[in-house]
């Protein structure tokens, strides 16, 4: 019982009755209907489901890139469902680290400068930035490539730069949207091992994927279908 209480106290994300609809003309098209989800600090959650089930929309809402049409989203004890654009930008900068399928590194910046970018928007002191960015790149195993441009790196290396960038502001959650979608199996394994390592360090990770073997790295699986959660379980995927 003690453990459950601790879990309650350390919840990072609480979604209550979240709904999201798009409008085509005056026609309402519901994408998410009544999502209720609590994610505890230090958990590794995969979100799966067939395409069109609303994975990306849920991801955007969880990542504070988009606001829900209705419902409440409490992130680290703070309601973010009604935040303004600038407040959301601030929240993204402090609370969320993104890892995208297509890496989304800025091609004109070196690995180091890409990792420094969130700290510029986060008002981190200049002399602290390089130190922190270098440390992050070393942690993902790219300590010898900090001055390489993205074009000079393999997909796996680029994704590791992106992970370093996601971690550098020490966010509450790491959002990984199909992080291995563009990678070969070897790089996939390397990247997923970094996520496992982060999980073991106590980071909260949310992973959107449609590949079972990638999802199997996670400890909890949330499966969406038709805009609502159809399954939510721990342990091995059936």
């Amino acid at each position, binding site marked *: 019982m003690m453990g459950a209480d601790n879990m309650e106290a350390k919840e990072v994300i609480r979604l209550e009755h979240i709904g999201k609809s798009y409008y085509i003309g005056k026609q309402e098209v519901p994408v998410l209907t009544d999502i209720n989800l609590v994610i505890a600090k230090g958990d590794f959650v995969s979100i799966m489901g067939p395409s069109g089930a609303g994975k990306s929309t849920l991801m955007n809402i969880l990542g504070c*890139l988009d606001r829900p049409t209705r419902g409440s989203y409490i992130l680290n004890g703070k309601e973010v469902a009604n935040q303004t654009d600038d407040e959301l*930008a*601030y929240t993204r*900068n402090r609370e969320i680290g*993104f890892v995208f399928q297509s890496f*989304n590194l800025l091609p*004109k910046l070196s690995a180091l400068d890409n990792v420094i970018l969130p700290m510029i*928007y986060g008002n981190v002191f200049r002399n602290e930035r390089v130190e922190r960015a270098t440390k992050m790149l070393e942690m993902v195993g790219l300590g010898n490539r900090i001055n390489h441009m993205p074009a000079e790196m393999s997909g796996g290396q680029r994704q590791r730069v992106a992970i370093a*960038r996601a971690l550098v502001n020490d966010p509450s959650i790491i959002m990984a949207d199909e992080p291995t979608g563009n990678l070969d199996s070897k790089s996939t394994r390397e990247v997923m091992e970094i996520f496992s390592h982060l999980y073991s360090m106590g980071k909260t990770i949310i992973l959107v994927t449609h590949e079972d073997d990638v999802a199997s790295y996670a400890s909890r699986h949330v499966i969406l279908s038709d805009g609502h959660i159809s399954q939510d379980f721990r342990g091995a995927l059936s």
Partner: protein
Amino acid sequence: MTNIYIESVRMAWSSIVSNKLRSLLTMLGIIIGVSAVIALVSFGYGVRSDVESNISSLGSNQITIIPGSDNGPGARGAAGSMQSLTYKDYEAIKLLPNIDLVAPLVSKSYTVVNGNKNWQTTVYGATDEYMEISDLTLQSGRYWTDEEYNKRSRVAIIGQTVATNLFGDESPVGQKIRINNQPFTVIGLLTAKGYSFMDQDDRIFCPFTTVQERLLGITYVNSIVVSSENDDALSQIQTDVTNLLRTRHRISAKDDDDFTVRNSQELLETMESTTQTLTIFLGCIAAISLLVGGIGIMNIMLVSVTERTREIGVRKALGATYHMIIVQFLIESVTVSVAGGLIGILVGCGIAKLIPLVTSMTTVISPLPVIGSFLFSVIIGLVFGIYPARKAARLNPIDALHYE
């Protein structure tokens, strides 16, 4: 805390440097605009200072009286076509107050001959006073004597252009020339005066008496020139001369003058306002090219926003606010236009310095167009940067991230 403006400048700068060609093309419009403004306005000022120095070299404290045009029934004749000014008028004007020097003048264009060479030039019949008013000095030879003046001797003082065309490199003094088939002795060569409105060295001066009676065979004069040491007295003299001549020519109050009085001060003012208009006109043309350059910046910035949609999405996902994106893009366009402006100033000043070396025109670089066009280019960067910057800053991060 760090300053997001400093960061934006750094980011804008690295974006400019990493897209050198795009930045240069963007700057090109501003460079051309700014340099055109500076070069053209310097050229305008150059024309103006030329005109001013020309007029003051003619003497800025002069009044010229010429006969009016025939005002009778039928066609109105050209100015100066009447024969209403006489030597007696000259003698009467001489007695007016405030006047330093007065000189009558007659002139006509003749073909002047030396052996097998001939040259079309204007022969003036002048007095010693005229030589003094016009500040004509001799390079070699001598002026005519009073005796030669009174005896209507056929002696001539010639300008440099005439000398070159009739004598080549030979010294003309002491040589004979023929004007209107009459033999004249060259007694002097004028110091070169250069151009002001016309070639000031393409002239021949002979004694007034000789030209009026021996060459022209007339009794009237073509003009009377009055000078005064005192610039302020010029308009008073102008009034006095007008009244005197109206009385002498018995012109009733309702009739027009049969002569024209020209004040060189007025001429200077007229020319100044003309060249001012020219300068403004040139400046306007150049300003239009500056404006077109600004629109060029807007085009490139808009293209750049579209091209960098994904980058903007990434920046927003990483926590860039509307404000930070707009500042970055604005600083980018302002930096490009400021850099373009500075290069434009260098190019414009270079062209303005080059024109006098290649052509006979002068240019005057003044601070106003330099500062003005530079500020204008900064403002253009701001104004034409705002729309693309707003467009970039308002992009929805989700759409921007998925933009291909």
